[in-house]
C-alpha cells in the first residue's frame, strides 16, 4: 500500500517483449517499462545480439528494478505481484513467472497469475476510468484474434466467454506474411497499414471469409494464400511477357551479343501489380471481416461498450472502421494508446489487481501454459 492505494507490480514475458510495470489501484500507471523501449544498449551492456529480444533472462532483472525505481515504490509497498502465466512461449513465460515467484517468496507478497489476453483487454481500462464491465472485446494481435464477452474482471467462472476466435492464422500474422510477400519487411502490420493508405482498397476483390452462418470464428489463412497467389500470378505473367518481348527484339537484331543479358534484365524489371493496391485490398478484406463479426457479436450480446485491443488495434484503418461501426450501432468504443496495445506489463498489473481484489492468490507452484482457456 502506498498513499492508501493498492500497489501491484506486473511482469510480462510471454513473447518478444520483456516488460515490468507498477500500477496503483489497478488503473493508475506509475511506471511501464518495456525492454525494446528503454535504452537497450544500457540493459545489455552495449551488446545487442540479433535474438536479444527473446533473451528475457538477461533483461528481466534490470527491467523490474527500473519499473520500481520509476514508480518510486519499494518492494515493501507492493501488495501483490501479477505475472503472465500464459498463453505464450512456455520458455519465455517461465522467466517472468520464476522472477515473480522469487520476488513473492522473498517479500512475502501475494502472487497472481494472469491470462495474457485478459491483460490486453484490461489495457483499455488504464486510460478510461469510466469503462466497466459488461463490455465486448475484440483482441487482435500477431498471435490472437478473439471476440470476448466480458461480464466481470474478478476471475470468477463465467466472467469471460470467448464468442469467436481464429481457426488458423491470427490477423496480425496474416499482415506479417503479406508484408513479407510484398517485400515490406517485419513487423508487417504498420508497413502494410502505411502502404495501404496510397492504394485503392477496392482494386482487387479478395474473398471475405465469414465461415458458416452464425459462427463468430475467423479464418485468415485463405486470404493470405489468395494474396500470395495474386502476387505470384502477376509476377509470372510479367516475366513471361518480358521474355516474349525480348525474344521479339532479338529476332529483329539477331547477332547482337548483348541480347542475352538484356533478356535477363528485362525479365526482372516489370512490376505488373500495384503493391499499394494489394496492401489496401488485403487490409480492407481483413477489416471487413473483423468489423462484421464484431457487429454481429454486439447485436448478439446487446453490449453497449466495445474494447479494441492487442497489437493490431494500433492499425489506423481498423481504428477508423471500428469507430464508424460503433457510432452506427450506438456503442461506445474504447481503444488503448499504441503503447498499451503492444505487449506490456501495466495491462498485466491492471488485470491482476481485479483478481487480487476479488481474493485470488496463486501458490508458488503456479505453472506456465502454452495454451490456456480464458475464463
Amino acid at each position, binding site marked *: 500500500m502506498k498513499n492508501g492505494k493498492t500497489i501491484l507490480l506486473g511482469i510480462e514475458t510471454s*513473447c518478444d517483449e520483456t516488460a515490468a510495470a507498477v500500477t496503483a489501484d489497478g488503473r493508475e500507471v506509475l511506471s511501464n517499462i518495456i525492454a525494446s523501449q528503454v535504452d537497450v544498449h544500457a540493459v545489455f551492456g552495449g551488446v545487442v545480439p*540479433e*535474438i536479444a529480444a*527473446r533473451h528475457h533472462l538477461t533483461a528481466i532483472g534490470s527491467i523490474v528494478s527500473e519499473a520500481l525505481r520509476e514508480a518510486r515504490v519499494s518492494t515493501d509497498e507492493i501488495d501483490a505481484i501479477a505475472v503472465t502465466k500464459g*498463453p*505464450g*512461449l512456455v*520458455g519465455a513465460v517461465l522467466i517472468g513467472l520464476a522472477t515473480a515467484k522469487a520476488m513473492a517468496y522473498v517479500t512475502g507478497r501475494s502472487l497472481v497469475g494472469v491470462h495474457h489476453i485478459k491483460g490486453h483487454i484490461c489495457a483499455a481500462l488504464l486510460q478510461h476510468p469510466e469503462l466497466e464491465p459488461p463490455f465486448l472485446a475484440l483482441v487482435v494481435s*500477431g*498471435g*490472437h484474434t478473439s471476440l470476448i464477452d466480458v461480464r466481470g474482471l474478478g476471475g470468477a467462472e463465467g466472467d469471460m466467454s470467448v464468442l469467436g476466435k*481464429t*481457426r*488458423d*492464422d*491470427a490477423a*496480425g*500474422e496474416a499482415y*506479417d*506474411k503479406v508484408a*513479407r*510477400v510484398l517485400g515490406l519487411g517485419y513487423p508487417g502490420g504498420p508497413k502494410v497499414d502505411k502502404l495501404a493508405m496510397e492504394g485503392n482498397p477496392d482494386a482487387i476483390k479478395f474473398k471475405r471469409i465469414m465461415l458458416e452462418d452464425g459462427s463468430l470464428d475467423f479464418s485468415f*489463412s485463405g486470404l*493470405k*494464400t489468395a494474396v*500470395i*497467389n495474386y502476387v*505470384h*500470378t502477376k509476377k509470372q505473367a510479367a516475366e513471361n511477357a518480358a521474355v516474349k518481348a525480348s525474344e521479339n527484339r532479338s529476332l529483329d537484331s539477331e547477332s547482337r551479343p548483348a541480347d542475352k543479358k538484356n533478356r535477363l534484365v528485362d525479365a526482372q524489371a516489370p512490376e505488373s501489380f500495384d503493391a499499394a493496391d494489394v496492401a489496401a485490398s488485403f487490409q480492407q478484406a481483413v477489416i471487413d471481416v473483423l468489423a462484421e463479426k464484431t457487429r454481429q457479436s454486439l447485436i448478439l450480446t446487446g453490449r453497449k461498450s466495445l474494447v479494441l485491443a492487442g497489437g493490431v488495434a494500433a492499425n489506423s484503418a481498423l481504428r477508423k472502421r471500428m469507430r464508424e461501426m460503433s457510432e452506427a450501432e450506438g456503442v461506445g468504443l474504447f481503444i488503448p494508446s499504441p503503447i498499451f496495445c503492444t505487449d506490456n506489463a501495466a495491462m498485466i498489473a491492471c488485470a491482476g489487481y481485479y483478481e487480487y481484489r476479488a481474493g485470488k492468490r496463486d501458490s508458488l507452484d503456479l505453472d506456465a501454459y*502454452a*495454451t490456456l482457456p480464458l475464463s
Partner: protein
Amino acid sequence: MVLNERELMEYGMRLGSELAPGVVIALTGELGAGKTTLAKGIAKGLGVTDEITSPTFTMINEYTSGRLPLSHFDVYRLGEGEAALVGMEELGYEEYFFGDGVTIVEWADLVEQLLPEDAIRISLSYGPDVETREVVVS
C-alpha cells in the same frame, strides 16, 4: 504429386493415421504453399480434436487429444543460420524430436542440421495453377 487443398488435407489424414511414435515430419515450402493445411490433415489423422492453428506466433503448439502427442513447430520467426539453431535449443527441440510423440516442423530447411536422419521430408510448392500444390516426399 499434384494436389488441391482438399486432396492435400486428405493426404495428411492418411499420413497421420499411419504414423508411429517418435516420427519427425519436416515441411518446407514458401508462404501459402500449404504447410499448415497439411499439418491440419496430419493432426486429424492422428485423431487430434483441437483446432490446429498456425504456430508462427508461439513457435510451438502442443496437442494431446490424439492417438499420439503432437507438437507443431514453426521456425519461421526464429531467424536464419545460427539464430534459428539457438532458438531451437531454447525451445528444447530434442525433447520433442527424440520423444514419443509426433513432431511436425514448418520451415524445416532453416534447421536442417538438427533434423533426425529418418525424418519424413515433405516439400510443398506451387502447382501448375493457383489452386494446386506440388508435393514431394522423401
